[in-house]
């Protein structure tokens, strides 16, 4: 009941000012979304004459052009590639994190502490540091321009593993003890006790992994220069740019941005609190 901010009446004026400031900021934050949605249904003529306002005669032509025009094959291919890469990547990440997190919580084994410390320390080394050696390695084994080069690296998510471990260590030990007494083996105990009981955290890991992978740009751009294997995030910027790079069709860019943003926005609408607390997990660990 007690609020962190002690009771203070405050004048109607300051109340109004505060809320106007907050509302104004909200408008600024949302403006690019509005520009995107409005712009995506404008004609090429209107996008220059009326760049920000409400569309006078909304049209879905831009989406038609993107999906069926000369760029149609590219857009479908890009979206398909994004799904082909993102879904298995997410699945593998969740399984690896769940299993490793389980090992760290349920077992005491030699090297446990050393491995854990090594993994936590690795958070300090950004993935980008390894870009050159990863590229050289994959070039040598012929993995550039493939799906597997986009699916396998990065599946050992230390943050995901840590989240799984934290959650699993809070599960009551008695259930595991009971399962063991009932004769359940190691895998059975994991599969039918730990996994179902950890659905909330594994769902959060899956969600965060999916969103991050779907949005990824640098890695696919570096390891895949063949449009056959490029995800939509890499194909999109080039879509409405002609070869000479000067004619940019803004309404198509906005429609394309809307297409790739829609799935993420839907996920956010449904799993709002998981996404917000998940991306900031670890911040308030102290």
């Amino acid at each position: 009941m007690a609020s962190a901010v002690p009771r203070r009446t405050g004048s109607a004026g300051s109340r109004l000012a505060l809320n106007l400031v907050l509302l104004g900021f909200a408008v600024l934050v949302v403006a690019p979304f509005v520009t995107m949605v409005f712009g995506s249904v404008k004609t090429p003529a209107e996008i220059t004459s009326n760049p920000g306002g409400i569309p006078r005669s909304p049209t879905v032509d831009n989406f038609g052009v993107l999906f069926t025009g000369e760029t149609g094959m590219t857009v479908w291919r890009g979206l398909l590639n994004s799904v082909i890469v993102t879904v298995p990547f997410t699945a593998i990440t969740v399984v690896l994190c769940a299993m490793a997190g389980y090992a760290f919580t349920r077992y005491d084994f030699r090297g446990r502490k050393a491995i854990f410390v090594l993994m936590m320390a690795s958070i300090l080394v950004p993935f980008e540091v390894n870009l050159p050696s990863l590229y050289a390695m994959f070039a040598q084994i012929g993995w550039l321009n493939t799906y597997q080069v986009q699916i396998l690296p990065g599946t050992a998510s230390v943050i995901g593993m840590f989240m799984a471990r934290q959650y699993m260590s809070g599960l009551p030990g008695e259930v595991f003890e009971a399962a063991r007494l009932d004769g359940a083996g190691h895998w059975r105990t994991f599969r039918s006790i730990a996994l179902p009981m950890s659905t909330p955290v594994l769902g959060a890991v899956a969600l965060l992994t999916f969103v991050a992978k779907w949005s990824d740009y640098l890695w696919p751009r570096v390891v895949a220069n063949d449009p056959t294997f490029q995800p939509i995030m890499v194909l999109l910027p080039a879509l409405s740019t002609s070869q000479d790079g000067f004619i940019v069709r803004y309404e198509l860019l906005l429609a394309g941005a809307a297409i790739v943003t829609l799935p993420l926005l839907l996920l956010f609408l449904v799993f709002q609190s998981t996404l917000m607390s998940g991306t900031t997990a670890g911040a308030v660990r102290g």
Partner: protein
Amino acid sequence: MPTGTTAPGEAPARRRRPAAADRAAPYLFIAPFLLSFALFFLIPSASSAALSLFSYRGYGEPDFVGLRNYASLLGSPDFRLSVANTVFYWLVPLIPLVVGGFLLAVLVRSRLTIAPGALRPVYFVPQVMAPVAAALVWRVMFSSDGVVNSLLPSDVDWLTDPTTGRWSVAALIVWRGIGWYFVVFLAGLASVPDETLEAATVDGANAWQRLVHVTVPLMRPIFLFAVVIDTIQSLQLFTEPNLLLGTGTAGIAPRAAAPLMNQVVLNIQGGQFGLASAVGWMMFAAIAVVSAIQFRLLRERA
């Protein structure tokens, strides 16, 4: 009742097999993760560190060159320019992100705020737009006949002039990032004990004094965390400047606005793996220094 009639040797033998399985189990559970971790992180990290001391074109034998890669980078005007740009992209958005995010969280938690529950997801939502999409939308908004120039109204060249372009990139970073810091601080503020604030009120502290003398000191670890995260992300910055300012299908920002990551990517594309690795390891060194400082500051307090 144990009768002691079991044949000697039988029981231990039966027990030994499950014991071996018990010992192996944790390693089997951790093996897939460890394999992925070793193949795509540990080995590449070691090889990257080594590679930074070699000249390697991606084929043939690497030539050992010692620290020459580092020396030639430090002597290169392009590299120094990209360091300066990265520092710009780090420091300019830092205050708006950390201080702005904090103040926003304080204001939203105020009793006077009408709909805090509705504001929270609204402020966070730019995080949900992928950097690629965000950069493209901003490119349209900041284009010469875009919505920004038409609303102001002005005739500013926001994107093609690299000096102005850097400010546009900084604005994009703040727009996309502030919601994240806001949510972090919101969670942090919830952990400030009510009693402490009430005690300060009883002692006659006003809202501003409570904020400066009670809340801010208690939030110190979170401020430090926010700065470290911002530093790491600034060093890795790639998508925003290149897609906002980059022209043509290549999507590479002009030199005068290019971030440090461009040195990694362009050197990879140019087949200079030693140089690219050296850039990466200098980035790591910078992160290690900032994290060490954070750790020191945290300990000093405790």
